[in-house]
C-alpha cells in the first residue's frame, strides 16, 4: 500500500464516521457498529468462499502483465502499472533487469509477483 492509499483509507474512514455515528456517542452505538462491521466482514469472507464469482468481484482476479518479454499493455494501462513498478518487485527478488523476467503478475492484493526466467531458476 502506498502512503497516499494509506492516507486515503484513513481519510475515508474519518469522513464516514460522522454520518454513521451522528450525535449518538453511546457505548451501545459503538458496540452495535463494531458488531455490524465484524459480522459484515465475516459474511463477505463466507460469501467469497461459497460463491467464487462473488469473490472475483470483491477481490478481483490476478492479471498477467508481463509474459515472455511481452508487455500486456492493455492490462498495464488500465491498471496504471508501469515498468518501474515491475522493476521494484524484480529488485526485491534480486533481479536487475526486465529481461531477466519470464512473467510478472499483478496479484489480487495489488502486489506484483515476478517469475524469473527458467534458466535462472535455482
Amino acid at each position, binding site marked *: 500500500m502506498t502512503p497516499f492509499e494509506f492516507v486515503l483509507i484513513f481519510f475515508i474512514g474519518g469522513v464516514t464516521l460522522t454520518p454513521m455515528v451522528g450525535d449518538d456517542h453511546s457505548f451501545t452505538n459503538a458496540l452495535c457498529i463494531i458488531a455490524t462491521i465484524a459480522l459484515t466482514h465475516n459474511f463477505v469472507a463466507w460469501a467469497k468462499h461459497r460463491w467464487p464469482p462473488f469473490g472475483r468481484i470483491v477481490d478481483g*482476479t*490476478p492479471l*498477467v502483465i508481463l509474459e515472455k518479454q511481452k508487455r500486456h499493455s492493455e492490462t498495464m494501462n488500465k491498471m496504471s502499472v508501469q515498468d518501474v513498478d515491475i522493476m521494484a518487485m524484480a529488485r526485491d527478488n534480486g533481479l536487475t533487469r526486465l529481461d531477466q523476467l*519470464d*512473467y510478472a503478475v499483478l496479484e489480487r492484493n495489488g502486489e506484483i509477483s515476478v517469475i524469473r526466467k527458467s534458466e535462472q531458476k535455482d
Partner: protein
Amino acid sequence: MPSTTEPVEESIEKVNDEIAVGSDLEFQRRWWRFERVIWVVFGLLILADLLGFFGRGHFAKVRLRTSDGSMDVQYERIERSATPSILIVQFGPSAIHDGKVRLWASESIVKRLGAQRVIPEPSASAIGDAGISYTFPSGAAPASAQFALEPLAPGIYTLSLRVPGSEQMTMKILVMP
C-alpha cells in the same frame, strides 16, 4: 482425531501451461467497463452536488415574494438532515402594523424543519391554528427575521408562512438524508 484431507487437484488455470495464475481477462474487461460507468456516475454526482441538487448550492436556494410585497422569503428548497440553514423573511410595509409584524408559521417549522432559534427574538409567540404566531417589534420597512433551521429527519415537508391580511405562502422543502 486427524483433520480431513483430500488430494490436491490442479484447479487454477495456467498460462502457457507452466504458471498457475487463474487470470480471467474477460471478467476483468467487464469490470473495467463497469468501473467506467461508476466513474461517470461519480462525476455526475459531484456535478449535481456542486450545482446544488443535493442542497447547499445555487439550485437549492429560492426566493419567493407575495404578490402584495408583504413578504419576501429566501430559503433552501433542498435541505440536508441535521445540517443548519437559514430562512430569511423580509417584510414589506404592508406587513407592519402599529410598529409590529405578526408572522404565522405552520407547525412544520419546528416539528420537521427543526427551527433552533429566531433572530431577532420575537416579543411574543403563541401557538394555535396549527402553527406558531410570532410577533416582532418593527420600525419602518424593510425589516427581516431569520430562522435557523436544522431538519431532524429526511423527507418532503410543507412549510406555510402568512402575515395578517396577505396571502399565505406555501413551500415544499426536500430534506436529504
